[in-house]
């Protein structure tokens, strides 16, 4: 089943992003939890982890001014969101059906808010909003205008996830998405590897102190270097090629991620994004990852991509139909 082609719904779904059972998760700095060590003495982060949650990256406008839910509000929010996600999404006509007739059965985005009951994954700034600077706001507005005018001239007009190039949630940084929110961590001598279920990405992070690649070499997922601060794996990623433009960022983005086991079955994942070309100040988020049984299956995205030829061919047919009139 080609679940990737549900992108229209997926994009909507990222607004209502997902999660696991939260009320059990300890906050990042709560505990004296001491993780086990690998045979060669590294803090052991290995296992399969899932970051699904319905808490969104940014605080929803309706919750402006409210940093935390009360437990009762959280339960109500979970209930409302579940109803919304599960409602019959079929539209009044066939076209609507084709574009978005998918309900929760298609997804695996979790049912819970994060355990801290914070109303956004963003913890800084306190308003839970990405602090775009003016230049970026103009740039993103222009890009959105262009996208509206050129929805499907060619493959490059489609989203990167439609094209199976990279997924907006696969990272880095790694965010909960509508499905495939699973990650498996392996540790070897001098590196940590993270298998990302979404489009079978693999991040291999050297922790041996080597320098970054030269700045002339730019990668979709950037170039990551890790080191241990106590029991926390700290990863710095630079050398982005700017084409994945995480949340509108440029190739100058510098990302710091922190992985800390805060309970036997919880890995607290925190990240800070800095890109002066896009954000007025660095911003940070915290996402609990819960241990999962797995296994992780193969997500062969590109190999089953009927969406790109379908969308493009459909656009050409529409143009032909309407060419009697405007004749573009």
């Amino acid at each position, binding site marked *: 089943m080609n679940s990737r082609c549900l992108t229209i719904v997926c994009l909507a779904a990222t607004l209502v992003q997902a999660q696991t059972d939260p009320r059990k998760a300890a906050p990042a700095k709560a505990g004296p939890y001491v993780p086990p060590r690998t045979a060669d003495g590294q803090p052991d982060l290995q296992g399969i982890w899932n970051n699904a949650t319905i808490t969104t990256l940014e605080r929803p406008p309706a919750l402006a001014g409210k940093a935390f839910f009360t437990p009762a509000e959280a339960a109500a929010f979970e209930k409302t969101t579940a109803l919304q996600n599960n409602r019959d999404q079929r539209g009044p006509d066939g076209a609507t059906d084709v574009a978005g007739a998918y309900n929760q059965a298609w997804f695996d985005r979790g049912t819970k808010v994060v355990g801290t009951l914070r109303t956004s994954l963003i913890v800084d700034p306190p308003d839970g909003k990405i602090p775009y600077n003016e230049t970026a706001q103009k740039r993103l507005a222009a890009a959105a205008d262009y996208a509206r005018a050129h929805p499907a001239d060619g493959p490059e007009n489609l989203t990167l996830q439609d094209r199976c190039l990279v997924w907006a949630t696969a990272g880095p940084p790694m965010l909960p998405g509508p499905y495939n929110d699973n990650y498996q961590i392996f540790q070897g001598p001098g590196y940590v*590897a993270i298998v990302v279920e979404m489009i079978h990405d693999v991040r291999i992070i050297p922790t041996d102190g080597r320098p970054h690649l030269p700045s002339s070499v730019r990668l*979709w997922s950037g170039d990551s270097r890790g080191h241990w601060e106590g029991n926390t794996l700290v990863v710095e990623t630079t050398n982005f090629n700017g084409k994945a433009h995480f949340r509108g960022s440029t190739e100058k983005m510098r990302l710091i991620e922190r992985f800390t086991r805060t309970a036997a079955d919880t890995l607290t994942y925190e990240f800070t994004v800095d890109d002066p070309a896009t954000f007025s100040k660095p911003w940070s988020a915290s996402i609990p990852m819960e241990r999962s049984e797995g296994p992780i299956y193969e997500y062969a995205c590109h190999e089953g991509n009927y969406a790109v030829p379908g969308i*493009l061919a459909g656009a050409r047919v529409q143009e032909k139909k309407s060419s009697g009139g405007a004749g573009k």
Partner: protein
Amino acid sequence: MGGLPAYAQTAARTARTPDGKPNLNGIWQVLTTANWDLLGHAAAAGPMVPLGAIGAMPAGQGVVDGEEIPYKPEALAKKKENFANRLTLDPEVKCYLPGVPRATYMPFPFQIVQTPQYILISYEYANAVRTIYMKDPGPSPIDSWMGQSVGHWEGDTLVVDVTGLNDQSWFDRAGDFHSDALHVVERYTPRGADAIMYEATIEDKNVFTKPWKISMPIYRRLEKNVQLMEFKCVEFVEELMYGKYRKQPAKP
């Protein structure tokens, strides 16, 4: 940190992991021309005239034991047809996942991350990845491009049983193919710190009259600070696959 790369230092110092197994951690690559043709072959012009010598096939000695792939007659005919139509049929042309064993001898490096429970192999080509389970999880629930790998040690040899492979991948650019009945048993035997002798026994009752075997060495990449780079090739095949649906033809 001068001198040898860290991985090489590690390998030279400890050929074994803490649990006493041969240490396969590191970045590896095959240097045969098996990806062009598993059988021995002279150099030949490539399928694209404008590419000239860049697109030509390098000569290579075969990697198949006995220098013969035991095709059933009708399957041999299909292999020949595959080769004739390789520009449209070879899954590598479309940047599709390579399957097993082809992933091993694509002309790209791969990295092994070895733990007692799992051995990860991350291939640079197309972000292909497989996890070798050292504890058998039972039959593969579904076919996939990279299949399900279950490993065990026989002395110093890592033996990997690969099942659950779909019928979409090929063995090489010469049109060698298989069905979804493919069963591959790989053997990784370290030879010193910097080489692994690789064997794969291939069985597919729908296509071959008997099992057959390929073998080749895998070499450790010893460059200072060597790391896997990205080969996200989907971007490179969009014009080929979707160009015909463009509003305006792409500029050459």
